[in-house]
């Protein structure tokens, strides 16, 4: 399994990256950890005549926990997230989700930027970032802009990022309340059959805000506004959870593949969301 030949670049700053992207257009692609891209190149499902390795660019490997938000550089790895105690204290759902991605070897190399930019519906971080209402910073020839995670995903491998833009950072408003990332997979290292990211805030026994996003149940991650709304104002009892699941099932659109037929995926989505809400509630 040898990929097609390509030119390799290892620029040392973002200006260098952008100028190669400008010169070669969609014949050029950036690579972070390469753990989604290289398998696709080996299968010759991705053809990348000009490969730009981001490892020497710098400035994209920091995790900063501020008073109201967290920023995570695009080159931060899944392992870095798991390993960062300050981040885990501020947003424990990130560690809980990262531990369910792939396997130890992949987590040392796979980056947050690559995971959210990839556009594969199987990736776990896009749904997670939608749940957390994160935004992505992208830089291109016309400067820098912010795109909300909830508006970033258009279709499988199609995102709001233009071909000549690079994603540099993820910003997450400091989350509050109880959380859970729950994932059903066939084995460790597998993408989700269904996964749910949930954050719930309760005050005096009643839910005041809830955020729910689902992974691998459509050609994009699915942020279900209606599912969250079904919990707000309730004690997050069984009736409210049933209503949230019904609302979520109206928003997803799974297709049949080797993880199962549509009916099975909908069933699993319901089971996983029920567990995720129960766990988030117990932590709220």
């Amino acid at each position, binding site marked *: *399994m*040898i*990929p*097609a*030949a*390509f*030119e*390799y670049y*290892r620029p040392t700053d973002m200006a260098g990256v952008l100028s190669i992207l400008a010169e070669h257009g969609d014949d050029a692609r950036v690579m972070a950890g*390469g*753990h989604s891209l*290289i*398998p696709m*190149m*080996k299968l010759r499902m991705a053809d990348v005549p000009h*490969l730009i*390795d981001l*490892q020497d660019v710098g400035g994209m490997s920091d995790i900063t926990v501020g008073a109201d938000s967290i920023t995570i550089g695009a080159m931060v790895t899944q*392992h870095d997230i798991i390993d960062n105690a300050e981040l885990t204290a501020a947003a424990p759902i990130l560690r809980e989700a990262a531990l369910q991605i*792939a*396997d*130890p*070897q*992949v987590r*040392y*190399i796979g980056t947050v930027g690559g995971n959210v930019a990839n556009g594969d519906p199987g990736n776990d971080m896009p749904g997670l970032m939608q749940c957390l209402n994160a935004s992505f910073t992208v830089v291109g020839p016309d400067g820098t802009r912010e795109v909300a995670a909830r508006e970033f995903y258009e279709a499988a491998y199609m995102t709001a990022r233009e071909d000549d833009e690079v994603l540099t950072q993820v910003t997450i408003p400091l989350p509050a309340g109880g959380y859970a990332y729950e994932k059903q997979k066939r084995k*460790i*290292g597998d993408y989700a059959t269904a996964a749910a990211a949930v954050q719930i805030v309760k005050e005096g026994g009643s839910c005041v805000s809830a955020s729910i996003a689902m992974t691998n149940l459509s050609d994009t991650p699915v942020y279900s506004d209606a599912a969250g709304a079904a919990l707000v104002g309730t004690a997050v009892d069984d009736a409210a959870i049933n209503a949230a699941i019904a609302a979520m099932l109206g928003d997803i659109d799974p297709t049949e593949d080797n993880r199962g037929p549509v009916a099975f995926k909908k069933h699993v989505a319901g089971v996983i969301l029920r567990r995720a809400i129960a766990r988030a509630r117990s932590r709220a």
Partner: protein
Amino acid sequence: MSNKKHITLSVNGKTEEFLAEPRELLIYTLRERLNITGPHIGCETSHCGACTVTIDGKSVKSCTMFAVQAEGAEITTIEGIGGPDDLHPLQEAFKEHHGLQCGYCTPGMITRATKLLEENPNPTEEEIRFGMAGNICRCTGYQNIVKSIQAAATEMNAAKEAAE
């Protein structure tokens, strides 16, 4: 055709310099160019971990990295961990506790386990199973791999204490 790149790597403490196409995967560099055949190709699709090596302190599937990405890096393979005359405690433990049958997965298993024990010198069975989840074995059923890693951890911790 693409330009060859001049690549310098340190493999098991030895500097290696060569010209290679950027598409050359590190596992091929090791096995075919440098004749370092400990790391195996099991799946070639990033799943089995037979090709695991340590690169700058991280366990990496070398079938999923281009050699050119590792430019300037320090790489350790099973050959750098221990040999027939100076077995590493993990190698000794795998031998003693039947941590292998056909042996195909073993170089990747042991290379990964060195890093696991470095990060967590006293792992529980559950932590071993989770930390070794990127390595697949078709023979042993894993039971004796877990036992071997536990035995090596005990041995290594005792040796460390004795040295202190």
